[in-house]
């Protein structure tokens, strides 16, 4: 009897425990389901606070914003430059009282999404999803950015699908502008939203390189009292270098140059590989080497150049070398390298030096070309909205298209005193339009603009003489 009772008590205890647990479980399930549903609904329906950053002003309501989206690899130099340039422009505009449209004041709002495109291990889904997010969720009306062609090729389509204005600040490939003035008119209607504000396209870069070579060939021959004709090309094996290399290979011989080597190295090349390339170049007695490099290859190239001291001058493209940190990164090995650079602290336009100093004061380093492009782009958008009194992409496109070679926009840009676009929405080139500067690293760690013999840009903006490496130039 007793035993049975005990058993009963035990059973009821167990039942109690079970039912408590059960109630707890039900509560838990309801709580989790409710919370999940709530969070889900909140994500979708909640009126979100503005995620736009308004440099220089605060407390601007959402309907007073000019919403600009910045796309780029934010953690890497090009994307960072894009962001900094846009930020500075927005700060200046907002501080100065914003943009007046039909009597109402609007302010620049910025939002950035990371496309992770500078990552050597590229995942294009990041770019596509960043572009979709910046348009569909963040609500950006104008897009600024883009750097790596492969990634941009994917997400430019997203922006074109959404019919948003896209000002490119980083990619030099002809491809994107080619789309605008492309195969068919339908191509224009789809891709007309794309404009390039930076840099000048790769064929124009090739043209500039040929021009400076023509000048340098004569100059060096005169200074060194020997013919300087032997040229080597050292370039990354990536598609964007092809048009430039083709131009160089085709046209340099007309100026009396011989291309002694055209080395395409894989982007995985190491320091030892570069030592090999320099020995090859030196073995062929090259007098000028033209690098066409956007990635870390430039670092190896310069460290091996400094160690091996091949008797040639380096004049070309090396994106990393545009950064002022390149000096410390190479421990000063970059001296005597001459590179293309869109902007330096010189009067490229009346605004350039002021911008430069402002930028350095704000960010404590020199601007990369994407920063200059983004700075100009934000100003362009603000000016356009101001001028047309409209936020519509189509109105802005018409406005931008109205600046042609014969009727340029003057004195509004940091990169050039005259700005205009050709029918493919690419920058018009050639002083006083878009042009590239040639800047050379000096032995004291400074960089200055060297002369192009008045061919690319006037000598009035030159800030220093050409220095030759003390170890000489090959015969």
């Amino acid at each position, binding site marked *: 009897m007793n035993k049975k009772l005990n058993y009963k008590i035990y059973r009821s205890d167990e039942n109690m425990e*079970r*039912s408590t*647990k*059960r109630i*707890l*479980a*039900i509560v*838990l*399930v309801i709580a989790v389901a409710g919370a999940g549903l709530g969070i*889900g609904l909140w994500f*979708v329906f909640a009126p979100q606070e503005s995620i736009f950053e308004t440099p220089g002003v605060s407390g601007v309501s959402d309907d007073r914003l000019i919403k600009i989206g910045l796309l780029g690899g*934010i*953690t890497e130099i090009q994307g960072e430059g894009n962001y900094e340039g846009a930020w500075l422009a927005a700060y200046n505009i907002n501080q100065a009282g914003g943009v007046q449209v039909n009597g109402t004041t609007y302010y620049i709002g910025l939002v950035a*999404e*990371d496309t*992770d495109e500078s990552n050597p*291990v*590229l*995942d*294009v*889904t*990041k770019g*596509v*999803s*960043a572009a*979709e*997010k910046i*348009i*569909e*969720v963040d609500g950006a009306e104008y897009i600024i950015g883009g750097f790596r*062609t*492969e990634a941009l*090729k*994917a*997400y430019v*389509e*997203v922006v074109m*699908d959404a019919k948003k204005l896209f000002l490119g600040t980083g990619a030099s*490939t002809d*491809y994107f502008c080619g*789309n605008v003035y492309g195969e068919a008119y339908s191509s224009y209607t789809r891709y007309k939203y794309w404009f390039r504000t930076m840099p000048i396209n790769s064929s124009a870069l090739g043209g500039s390189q040929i021009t400076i070579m023509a000048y340098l060939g004569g100059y060096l021959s005169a200074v060194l009292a020997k013919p300087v004709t032997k040229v080597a090309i050292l370039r990354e*094996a*990536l*598609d*964007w*270098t*092809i048009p430039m290399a083709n131009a160089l290979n085709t046209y340099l011989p007309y100026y009396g140059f011989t291309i002694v080597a055209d080395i*395409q190295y*894989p982007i995985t090349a190491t320091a030892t590989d570069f030592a090999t390339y320099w020995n090859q170049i030196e073995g062929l007695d090259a007098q000028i080497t033209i690098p066409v490099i956007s990635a870390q290859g430039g670092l190896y190239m310069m460290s091996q150049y400094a160690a091996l001291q091949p008797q040639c001058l380096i004049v070309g493209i090396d994106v990393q070398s545009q950064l002022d940190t390149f000096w410390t990164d190479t421990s000063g090995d970059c001296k005597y390298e001459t590179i293309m650079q869109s902007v330096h602290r010189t009067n490229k336009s009346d605004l350039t030096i002021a911008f430069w100093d402002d930028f350095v004061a704000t960010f404590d380093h020199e601007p990369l070309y994407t920063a200059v492009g983004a700075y100009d782009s934000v100003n362009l958008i603000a000016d356009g909205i101001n001028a047309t009194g409209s936020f519509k992409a189509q109105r802005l496109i018409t406005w931008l298209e109205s600046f042609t070679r014969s009727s340029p926009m003057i004195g509004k840009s940091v990169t050039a005193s005259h700005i205009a676009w050709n029918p493919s929405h690419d920058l018009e080139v050639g002083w006083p339009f878009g042009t590239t500067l040639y800047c050379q690293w000096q032995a004291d760690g400074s960089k200055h603009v060297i002369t192009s013999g008045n061919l690319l840009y006037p000598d009035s903006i030159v800030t220093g003489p050409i220095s030759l490496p003390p170890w000489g130039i090959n015969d």
Partner: protein
Amino acid sequence: MSAKSLSKGKGRVKKKLSGSKSYLLNWSKTFRGRLTIICLIGLCLIPLLTQNRYYLGIFITAMIFSIFAASWDFLAGFTGQVSFGQAIFFGISGYITSYFIRYLYLPWWASLLIGSLVGVAFGLLIGIPALRLKGPYLGLATMVLGLIMFYTFLNVKFEPWLGGSEGISKIPQISRNAVETYYIHLIFMITSFLILIWIGKSKMGTVFKSIRDDDIGAEASGINLTKYKLIAFMISAFFAGIAGGLFAMHNRGVNPGVFQPLYSFYAIVMASLGGIATISGSALGSYFFWFAAELFSEWPDVSVFIFAIILILVIRFAEHGILKPVLERLKDIWDLVLGK
């Protein structure tokens, strides 16, 4: 055993095996089955909640990679062939699909089919080293083959034929309508999963699993390893190819990047996050991965950093993936709710 003695035990055997016909019905009554059905219904209803391209885009990416991860899981989990080069099939199909859409103006579904079939052909090719190599060697060989594809397609010298470092672009999306695109991907995902799970449960699946458990024993049982390994590679390649083609269309093009070991690792990470040899675990892993990636994308600096930490913790403390433990916990709670 002669056929003569076979007839002896017939009646008894029949009894034992009856009921397998209503397998699906039974399955749908299990906890797991019900949960799966709820999840599927949930996925079907998502577009009612939002038609935003971006949100649907996350789901679409997750679905594409579910198929991709499942194709790896099929090969590694069922057949025991651990491939580190799954991106080969993914990439080649992406290229072929894009090529047919862009230059031969074929409709997307035909291009996708052709792309996947070329993937199958590559499956056959890649399967051949698998006949000679085992374990880590197979893993490394497939990874190296993937790198060869990557560098070949990247090579400037082959640019006129293979598209160079920038690949093929301007591929239109399946549909301009995001919701339609979503449902098409959903159908692809569900169909692929059903087929893969069905193969896993079929007789051929039994043979695959026997090869995984003991290849020598399988051969001693009269199984033609060559044939079955190749078939497994081809099936896996087909579904990786489907994923690759969808990926190319979703991202409007392909570039040599699709051959990077990165994507092979994505597949491995997702499948093992969910749980190897479960197929549906791949979906869990893939959704988890992409949601996490997007959730953290607000803080671009730390996003992948945090993800790496999560990955380490999951693998360290739940080495067989999270699908099974999560299901068990859920079932426990559910049983309690029902008062069982």
